[in-house]
């Protein structure tokens, strides 16, 4: 195959844009799995749910996808808090999170997917917005706005979470709970409340990630499954709970996946994330930037 420089450069740029989006998808799992140790494999299902809500409002009322997702934030936060409460009472409190807790999240993932199939069917759905279609050209580089807008939104979201976690009082409480729950209890703080807030926050990010997903690609209910491997690969590779690490790992995976699909065909791309995950687990389980 004739490998030209502009093809490679464009694949890398597109990969970086895709990586930015992956960072938004992973942000929630980075909080729930990385900081709280809750293996929420249903996270992609919440993202798809967000995508469908955005799709529904966008098609019927013509509201911009990202605006819809921001309006839906409190709903997703409440949903997350509710799910955590059930999870805590049924599994964490009884010390059964490893087997039954996992099965619970798997059940949620499955029920969400099947419900969406029953309501919307398995046809691909897409949204309408002014920035879907045109692209900017800078020299050799070609940047579709369909990818650029999600990437910028994702980076903003990511920055906001990082600021919240490191600067605000509540954010620091979340960090504290991830480091030493017992110590927090001894300080007379309620770790369960902190965890509920953090989990609510993690599900809230799924609303925005869902809007970005439906901007980038047409969706159908089972699309979320492809993201499970990706999300956890990024999360582990970046080092659990490390937000900057997660961002770098997301960009890295985006670029490598895009190079793979440019040179070997898009049907091979899903295997990349898994290869990454297995290699990381086998050789450096703490992740590239883990403590």
């Amino acid at each position, binding site marked *: 195959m004739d490998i030209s420089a502009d093809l490679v450069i464009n694949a890398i740029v597109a990969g970086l844009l895709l990586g930015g989006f992956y960072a938004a998808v992973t942000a929630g799992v980075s909080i729930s799995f990385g900081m709280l140790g809750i293996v929420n*494999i249903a996270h992609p299902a919440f993202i798809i749910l967000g995508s469908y809500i955005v799709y529904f409002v966008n098609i019927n009322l013509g509201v911009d996808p990202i605006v819809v997702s921001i309006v839906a934030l409190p709903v997703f936060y409440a949903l997350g808090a509710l799910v955590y409460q059930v999870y805590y009472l049924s599994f964490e409190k009884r010390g059964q999170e490893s087997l039954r807790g996992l099965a619970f999240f798997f*059940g949620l993932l499955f029920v969400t997917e099947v419900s969406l199939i029953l309501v919307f069917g398995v046809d691909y759905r897409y949204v309408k917005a002014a920035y879907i279609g045109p692209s900017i050209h800078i020299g050799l580089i070609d940047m579709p706005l369909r990818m650029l807008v999600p990437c910028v939104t994702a980076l903003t979201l990511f920055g906001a979470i990082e600021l919240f976690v490191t600067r605000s009082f509540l954010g620091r409480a979340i960090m504290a709970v991830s480091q030493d729950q017992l110590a927090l209890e001894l300080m007379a703080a309620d770790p369960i409340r902190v965890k509920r807030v953090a989990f609510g926050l993690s599900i809230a990010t799924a609303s925005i990630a869902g809007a970005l997903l439906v901007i980038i690609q047409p969706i159908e209910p*089972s699309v979320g499954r492809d993201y*499970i*491997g990706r999300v956890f*690969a990024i999360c582990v590779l970046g080092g659990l709970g490390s937000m900057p690490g997660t961002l770098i790992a997301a960009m890295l995976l985006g670029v490598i996946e895009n190079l793979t699909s440019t040179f070997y065909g898009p*049907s091979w791309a*899903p*295997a990349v994330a898994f290869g990454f*995950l297995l290699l990381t687990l086998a050789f450096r389980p703490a992740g590239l930037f883990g403590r």
Partner: protein
Amino acid sequence: MGVVKFSTAAIGVGLLVLAFAHWLKLDYFYFAGYTILQFIVLATAWNILGGYCGYVNFGSAAFFALGAYSTVFLHKLYPLPIPVLIVIGAVVSGMVGLGMGYLTLRLRGAFFAIATLALAVVLQTLVVNWEYVGGSRGAYIVSSDTIDIAGIQINYIEYLFVLMLALAVIALATARTIERSQLGFGFAAIRDDELAAETSGVPTLRLKLIATALSGAFMGMAGAPFPYYISYLQPASAFGLEYTVNSIAMPMIGGTTSWIGPLVGAVLLGTLQQYATVTISSAVNLLIVGLMLVGFVIVAPNGLVGLVQERLCARRGS
């Protein structure tokens, strides 16, 4: 009851089922029965790792498909009798299970679960890109209507049914034997407290690898005859999420600590699904399975077997 006694009893029950099927003379019974028996094997296999050791495997569909695609591959290469294909499917799936386990089982349980989830996606990618076994278009496996065994003509579906029945008996007998052996006590120690088990001298990694390989091998066995049953195998049907969700839901709903649980769950859910698929729709029936799974893990953590045991204990106490 000893191992020999139990196996004899299980074979006896199997023969009774067979005699009933033969007396019924209904092809539909064989088709429906095959699916339920296949789920008994899958649920029992999942439970060896999940219920006994406490490690969740989300890759049942992947191991099942490995068995099925081994058959497709060999069918194109050189036609072999199905029992041989079952053994080969077991070896392939068992080896993959061993490799996966070796890479991820030394870490926290969650990593193993995540890796198995991703395994299904990657194996499906491989199969879709592999033209020899049909790629994304799928592969036709045409078999004759009848098969000649020792001079007797048997209906093909009846033959498949008998094979799956034998597999179910073997899987259940194996699970029960493990439960009562030193191996089973080691598994239970890992499930209850891995650190304590390790410090008491239980070779945890080795036991976990044995469980993963065994569990994967049985799933591969369940998958090996599948192409002959379905006669047109597509990646989407071999890697179907319903295998994963059912092989988790059935032991969880039945009860994970003994061999009876997966059996009860598989017969119950399997029959229910056969009924619901015919009368309602297959999407609704999957929704029912998902909701039952979520409901049971929250409300009845020890499954139906646990509920019955509690009831019995309460009656004895009063």
